[in-house]
């Protein structure tokens, strides 16, 4: 089971969280976003085979969205933080 470090609650079991998808998909500006911007936001994903920034909802905990940087090949969690935080690359 994944152990996810919620920045608000500490280390918790994966079962307390709900996956909320790619954190890199950025919502276009409502005034200036073009059709193409919206299409890319809604449908296209980088889907990398390596490090992936993603949102998880601590649904059975503090109920806040958090950002997780995870290696999707090894499932290793590199860093976690608030959605607006910039996360470490894991290189030490």
């Amino acid at each position: 089971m994944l152990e996810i470090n919620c920045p608000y609650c500490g280390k918790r079991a994966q079962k307390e969280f709900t996956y909320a998808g790619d954190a890199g998909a950025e919502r276009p500006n409502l005034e200036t976003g073009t059709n193409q911007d919206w299409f890319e936001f809604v449908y296209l994903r980088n889907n990398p085979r390596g490090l992936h920034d993603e949102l998880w909802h601590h649904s059975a905990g503090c109920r806040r969205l958090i950002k997780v940087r995870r290696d999707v090949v090894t499932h290793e969690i590199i860093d976690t933080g608030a959605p607006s935080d910039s996360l470490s690359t894991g290189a030490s």
Partner: protein
Amino acid sequence: MQKYSIFSLARNALTSHKNWGEAWRNPDPKQEYDVIIIGAGGHGLATAYYLAKNHGITNVAVLEKGYLGGGNTGRNTTIVRANYLLPENELFYEHSLKLWEGLSQDLNFNVMFSQRGVINLAHTDAQVDAHQRRGNAMILNGADGVWLNKHEVKARAPLLDISDRARFPIKGGLLQPRAGTARHDAVAWGFARGADARGVDIIQNCEVTGIDIENGGVVGVQTSRGAIKAKKIGTAVAGHTGHIAAMAEMRLPIESHVLQAMVSEPVKPCLDTVVTSGATHTYISQSDKGELVMGGDLDLYNSYAQRGNFPRIEEVVASVISMFPAFSRLRLMRTWGGVMDMSMDGSPIITKTDINGFYINGGWCYGGFKATPGSGWVYAHTIANDTPHKLNEGFALNRFEHGYMIDEEGSGATPNAH
């Protein structure tokens, strides 16, 4: 190709089965091919087979990074069905189901297709309505579908708990009698043998690491065994479509996720049909070896690892036991996972692209095994003619941009919810 028959069996029995020839060659890659298919799973091999058989294109290589059939083709729960609501899906999968019905004969290889029926259980009044509507849609599209009340369900799967005490009481089920299961490895082997006999080179241990593009068209690939040229390149890499597309600088409406499956210890025959549940999204059948084969939902987070996590295993097993209390005594023998493309509308993508000569076959979500012959059939057509077959016109890549999604579940652009 050495034809398999009762006579070849008898002849080889005389020499203690020591003189059977190899089923396919193991060639080194040539410098150039007319068509390169990336991925020797069922889809890639079927595509090569139909390129040769239906279109006379035999200067073809299938490049495989591991061994043939070692991907999802060898990892799935082998359910073959055509019980969809939307016409694009239903017509395509029904075509595939018809090919399954003649596949062992066509390939001269026993793919052990067993039409034991697939029952999709309904647990609420709303599900009863939805299942009956889907059954009618199937019939209108030329497939078979039969509504069973709960006693008729029980007659076909006696170990099911149909009492009102069940966690998800069973109201009835939608049966597709012609659906069933097949031997997963045999499908890859049969297509490999048939393609090889027609001149296709199947090259294993050959990972594609780059796609060479010049003036808006493909010219070849880079691989772990050197560069290979081709003017047409088609991907058939299941969960790795996004990874290959990135080599051609494309982003796709796909996320890669891990799906697990598991088997119990083998027991005597006790379930001779396939049971799937609309409430818990689990599916269960019994293999010829006697193991109960079970699967459920994705692990739900992006993954390129061919293994999953314990919470999902627990949920699948709990759901199965809630339907079949007798199975609670069995021990779980083995679990495994496979990486799947989850598309943004839950339907596959079989398409040409904006890059000349570059074709994509992916986005199979939970259900690409049953599509294997149909997918190879229409993908070969698409590659040979540079234009889609009637049955995959709807599965174009540009449908997302233009709003022609084929969203069977109606769950929108959330790949893990399909």
